[in-house]
């Protein structure tokens, strides 16, 4: 059986950053990857997708974007080659094409069953991502047979969809991007809007991600939050990465012709039912956006930058319309596809160690899992607000590599 002191599962940003930090501490390790480097970015993303963070913010330990468009947004092929180059430069010991099928606890570590034979390790870092499975509500089972059901991980581009109208469920990052793209092809698009986080792409001349970074919001630690569970459940930011740096929000989608309905709450005989709470969800998102813009303005004033930047401004409140429909006969309305942009969750079906809570989430304290020598990475707000961002992998990897190194040193002493 093959052995490494530490095994990292997954060669995405988290696994690569962790490898770099383990190498720096001379800890022998391998990165087991089911496919190739950046596998999810290769195989589980739609064609037009670009990163939602600007190029300059693609930073990994000892590595950063050096191209001539720091404010642009990488396409998926660019993301893949960015990671590939990093893996080569950092000489990451990747065991590619190897799927982990089971992890069991042993006397002094873990035993991994993989598609290429077993491995043993003392320390295990789960860096297999936060978005392995599209979360689909159970009412999807009641969709009429004529309606195709998809997650954004299966969607590639609009012309591959069955002919006819499309209902997109969820108005966070994935939902609004797909609504914009599919509406532009002239199809009927109905967007079911639940809780969402509205943000302008550019504010006072800078990217919203630049502001969140500058005011320190991305570095806020998990143990400084009053209600970390709530912060971890927050939907993704309503953003799109385009060369034109456009803002996508419900108002711009409405102008483009997208129809809104409330949260999708029921399905009876092909008749979809929507919540009447849409106006409040939009009001919540508008208020929350204005609070963030207010903190940005406060930071600008406190640092004396007000004169060198465009003046503060506020955006039009979300126009939900006076009459929002509460039900829709999907077939009669010509809806032939439903895309569930209702969030993603990690897949731990292979993890045979009792570290999951009653909702199937892995238990951890800032990435330290309550099983000896086990760590997790890349989950939303895991150690910091930026933990699930490419730019967040480095700091988390450094913290956890330090923890891992110390526990090895203690065991050796």
């Amino acid at each position, binding site marked *: 059986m093959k052995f490494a002191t530490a095994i990292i599962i997954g060669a995405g940003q988290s696994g690569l950053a962790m490898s770099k930090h383990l190498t720096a501490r001379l800890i022998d390790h391998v990165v087991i990857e089911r496919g190739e480097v950046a596998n999810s970015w290769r195989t589980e993303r739609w064609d037009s997708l670009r990163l939602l963070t600007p190029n300059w913010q693609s930073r990994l330990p000892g590595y950063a974007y050096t191209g001539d468009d720091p404010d642009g947004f990488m396409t998926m092929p660019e993301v893949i080659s960015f990671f590939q180059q990093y893996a080569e430069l950092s000489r990451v010991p990747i065991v590619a094409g190897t799927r982990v099928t089971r992890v069991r606890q042993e006397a002094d570590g873990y035993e991994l069953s993989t598609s290429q034979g077993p491995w043993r390790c003392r320390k295990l870092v789960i860096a297999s991502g936060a978005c392995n499975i599209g979360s689909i509500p159970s009412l999807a089972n009641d969709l009429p047979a004529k309606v195709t059901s998809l997650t954004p991980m299966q969607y590639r581009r609009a012309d591959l969809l069955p002919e006819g109208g499309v209902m997109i469920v969820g108005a966070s990052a994935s939902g609004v991007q797909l609504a914009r793209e599919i509406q532009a092809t002239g199809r009927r698009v109905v967007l079911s809007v639940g809780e969402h986080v509205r943000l302008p792409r550019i504010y006072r001349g800078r990217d919203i991600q630049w502001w969140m970074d500058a005011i320190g919001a991305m570095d806020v630690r998990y143990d400084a939050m*009053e209600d970390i569970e709530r912060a971890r459940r927050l939907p993704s930011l309503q953003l799109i990465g385009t060369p034109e740096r456009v803002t996508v929000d419900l108002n711009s989608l409405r102008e483009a012709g997208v129809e809104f309905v*409330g*949260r999708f*709450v*029921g399905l009876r005989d092909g008749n979809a*039912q929507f*919540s*009447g*709470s849409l106006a*409040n*969800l939009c*009001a*919540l998102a508008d*208020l*929350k956006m*204005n*609070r963030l813009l207010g903190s940005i303005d406060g930071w600008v004033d406190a640092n004396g930058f007000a004169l060198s930047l465009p003046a503060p401004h506020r955006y039009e409140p979300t126009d939900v319309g006076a009459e929002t429909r509460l039900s829709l006969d999907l077939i009669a309305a010509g809806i032939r596809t439903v895309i569930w942009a209702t969030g993603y969750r990690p897949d731990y079906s292979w993890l045979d160690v009792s570290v999951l809570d*009653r909702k199937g989430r892995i238990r951890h304290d800032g990435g330290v899992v309550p099983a000896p020598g086990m760590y997790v990475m890349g989950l939303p707000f895991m150690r910091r607000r930026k933990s699930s961002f490419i730019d967040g992998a480095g700091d988390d990897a450094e913290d956890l590599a330090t923890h891992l190194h110390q526990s090895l040193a203690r065991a050796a002493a």
Partner: protein
Amino acid sequence: MTMTMSASIAAKIDNGVNVTALLGAREALEKAPEAAEFKWRATCEWVNGTHSRSSIGKFFGLGSEQSRDKTFVIEADHPKVFAAEDNAPTPVELVLSGLASCLTAGVAAVAQRRGIQLHSVKASLEADMDIQGILGIDDEVRNGFGAIRVHFDIRADASEDDIKAVVAQSQKRSAVFDIITNPTNVFVTVN
């Protein structure tokens, strides 16, 4: 830093809501979710005509039957334009009152939690109903409300946006708001 600040502000403000107890209950129920399963009950007896009398007493929660000091009585009837006696509000008005009370309680609790002192809160509600539905004149008209409008007048030591945020959060966490805005299965049996 933020936590200490809001705690010291919260100590000075008093909306009569015991937030500490509520937060304690939340923490306890996160660890024992089965205790969070409640059952609410009402009984209703016909008096005469459209006049009825409901009694509300015991409920189930925190793992056992809960009794209270008294049984509450709520009557309902219909107004004279419906050829009734107008002994009490109509059931649909009681629904409006239930929504208003739920949102108002939420405003007080959220404001307390956010360290906002309330001075006055008044909710005014209006609902549209086309009674062709309940009279069976037009099957395309629903029986219930076409829309409900709620207006809050709130005086509090907070900015306009902070007050709006309290009202929005109150809707987000309101049971009656959820009951009204989302479908619920109703099972009726007869002896």
